């Protein structure tokens, strides 16, 4: 009898059930989308923060002091130590290699550029094809320095073409496609580079060309590494030498900027890796602010959708006073009437929850695609959580209305005097 009551209630009151179901579906959909966006926003914003450029720099351990003013290197090229280019692919072999977005080696060389006088040529990777074991990957300044803009074309890493900084190009009057003389040889200018920094007065060339001009094959002055990191906390700042083994494992296996620096030092011989504090320190605060904001907004969304579901359920039950009156007049007890309503609510919540979850997942993907150009992943563990929330909210929303409906005198209800 109970099952039939529930079944007939769904069969005969399609419109009302549909309305309540739609409200639950929408509420659950919005909640799912917001939770999915909020859990993934940290990762997405972290990737956007990489547009600030590298957050780690690797230098030779035994290096002499930098003599850099306004980005111009005054150190004689004979001075100081170098890293070995052959060690670079090993960066992909560190524990956190999935978090390393890219890296770019730098080798500044002072050169004589014919009538342009003496200036700095910077050797680097643009988007170089490298391999570590079976793992092929592409890296270079186009990834680590996304604010570098080129008018014309980026040079190929295996070519002998160069980029001219925009102020230098204006001074010597060169356009993309022109030739420029460097150390007695003529090179094609493939593009004009604009960075807003010291490179605007420099020539930027493939690393091999700079090494050849310097006469030191395989030499690299420093490596910029761009990595996705976790905001630093008390553990991150501790010195690994003073840690207990368990603590060390936890530190080593967390993507702190400090532990990634430590691992870079491990794979590159005679190197010193350091966080670039301007980038590394600030991204933590920006990230935690944005994450906190989205968390609070998600709470607001959950609140609004819970309210919408409760309102819809309360209205739906309030409209059925006559039915309650009839059932009571025929001798139904309070418990069995409440059980009927709660079963209906649970069924509605489950159906609305499942469709809402699917809709919310689609919505989250759409948001991810249109805003971040990447997928927003939805953890499968979210599904039971969302369903449970849907059932609880639907029950809570119905409870007050059911209580009122049950307490109502059947005589008044049947006479229509609400």
């Amino acid at each position: 009898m109970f099952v039939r009551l529930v079944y007939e209630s769904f069969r005969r009151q399609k419109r009302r059930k549909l309305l309540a179901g739609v409200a639950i579906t929408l509420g659950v959909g919005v909640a799912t989308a917001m939770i999915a966006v909020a859990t993934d926003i940290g990762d997405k914003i972290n990737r956007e923060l990489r547009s600030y450029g590298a957050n780690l720099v690797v230098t030779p351990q035994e290096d002499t002091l930098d003599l850099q003013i306004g980005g111009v290197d005054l150190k004689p090229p004979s001075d100081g130590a170098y890293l070995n280019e052959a060690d670079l692919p090993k960066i992909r072999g560190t524990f956190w290699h999935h978090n390393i977005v890219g890296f770019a080696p730098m080798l500044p060389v002072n050169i004589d550029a014919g009538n342009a006088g003496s200036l700095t040529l910077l050797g680097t990777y643009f988007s170089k094809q490298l391999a570590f074991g079976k793992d092929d990957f592409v890296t270079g300044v186009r990834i680590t320095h996304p604010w570098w803009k080129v008018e014309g074309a980026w040079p190929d890493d295996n070519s002998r073409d160069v980029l001219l900084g925009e102020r230098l190009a204006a001074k010597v009057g060169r356009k993309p496609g022109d030739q420029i003389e460097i150390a007695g040889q003529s090179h094609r200018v493939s593009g004009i580079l604009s960075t807003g920094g010291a490179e605007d007065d420099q020539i930027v060339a493939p690393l091999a060309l700079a090494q050849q001009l310097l006469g030191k094959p395989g030499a690299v002055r420093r490596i910029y590494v761009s990595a996705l990191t976790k905001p630093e906390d008390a553990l991150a700042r501790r010195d690994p030498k003073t840690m207990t083994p368990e603590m060390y494992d936890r530190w080593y296996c967390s993507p702190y900027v400090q532990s990634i620096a430590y691992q870079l030092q491990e794979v590159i011989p005679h190197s010193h890796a350091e966080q670039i504090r301007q980038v590394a320190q600030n991204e933590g605060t920006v990230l935690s602010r944005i994450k906190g904001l989205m968390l609070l907004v998600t709470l607001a969304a959950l609140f609004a959708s819970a309210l919408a579901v409760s309102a819809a359920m309360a209205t739906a039950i309030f409209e059925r006073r006559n039915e309650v009156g009839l059932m009571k007049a025929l001798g139904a007890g309070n418990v069995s009437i409440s059980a009927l309503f709660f079963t209906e609510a649970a069924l509605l919540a489950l159906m609305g929850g499942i469709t809402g979850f699917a809709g919310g997942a689609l919505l989250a993907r759409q948001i991810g695609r249109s805003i971040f150009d990447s997928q927003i992943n939805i953890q499968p563990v979210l599904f039971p959580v969302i369903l449970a929330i849907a059932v609880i909210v639907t029950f809570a929303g119905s409870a007050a209305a059911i209580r009122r409906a049950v307490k109502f005198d059947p005589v008044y209800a049947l006479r229509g005097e609400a």
Partner: protein
Amino acid sequence: MSFPPMQPPGIEDLAVRRSRKPHTSMFVRMLVRAAVLRRGRAASALLAMVVAAAVATAMLNLYVDVQAKLRREFRNYGANVVVVARNGQTLPTDALQTVESALAGHGLAVPFAYVVARTADGQSVVVSGTDFDQVRKLDSWWSVSAWPGAPKSALVGIRAASVVSPQGKPFDLSFQGHTVHLTAAGTLQTGAAEDSRVYIPLSDFEAWTSVPPSTIEIAASGSPEEVNATIQQLAKVLPAADVRPVRQIMEGEARVLGKTRATLLASATLIILTAALCVLSTLIGWVFDRRRDFAIMKALGASERLLNSFFAAEAAALGAVGAVIGFAIGVGVAAWIGRVNFQAPVVPRFSVLPVVLVGSIVVALISSVVPISLLRRVQPAMILRGE
């Protein structure tokens, strides 16, 4: 059928009293009595309206204000504009004052002067003169063991420290034959070129080297348009210098801010839609519930227009009252979110009020028009019979 010969005295009294009372419009009385007599239902409809308006206000307020809040965080990245002397020249002596008057408080300007000096054993090191109080504010990421306070005390980069003053001992630096004796107040770590430098107060620097500042680093606040306007103004007042935006900082900021705002906008839209839906379903239920009132009015001869305007006025009043109360609560919620997340309250934006007000009234009107137009087709007798 005949009327009783005598009316009970009470009713006559009432009729007399009523006729003597000032004539409040029947329309207004109907509106007020409808709200007072069905307090429970009216209150739940109002509650839904208030909550929806509050959520909408909080989200809109946050959306408008979050940009300013996040910009402040982004200023921690340091200078977004630099003024440098052209090749081989120095900045005019009053350059810093010019920059500061052009900024007019909307930013921070810090002068830097550089020379390459020699240590006692002949090593080269870059020495910079600057204003420590300002640098502390501009470059908050500098990790400094102790800021120098006394004159002739230096902040030594962590890599320079091993060269110039290994045990933190006082040291001598010479530049073009002039020697200065400095004490190391603390060490500096940034992971960039600053690690290889020695920083000293600008006054000591100028007395020692007679070299004026060659760079002014500026953290200009405001939107990209405002920063660009600042750059153009600086270029105009300092024709002898190069004024450049720091593209790394400006582009990164624009990107992250744009994405955050877009996400927030998407979330705000979803939340406001959900809240509107909640109001819609509650109000439709409320109006539907009063089909008897509707039928009685119709049976007593009320015109379509009167009925429509009655329910519309009721909805509009509900929407307006709900919006105003909701606005006050929503402003409070936004301020609380600002305090919790940004350590600064979100300023109430009264420009949001008309949007919330109009939105609430429109939603309320829609939710009364839909059931009324359904009910209009039904005979009042059917409704009154409870079918």
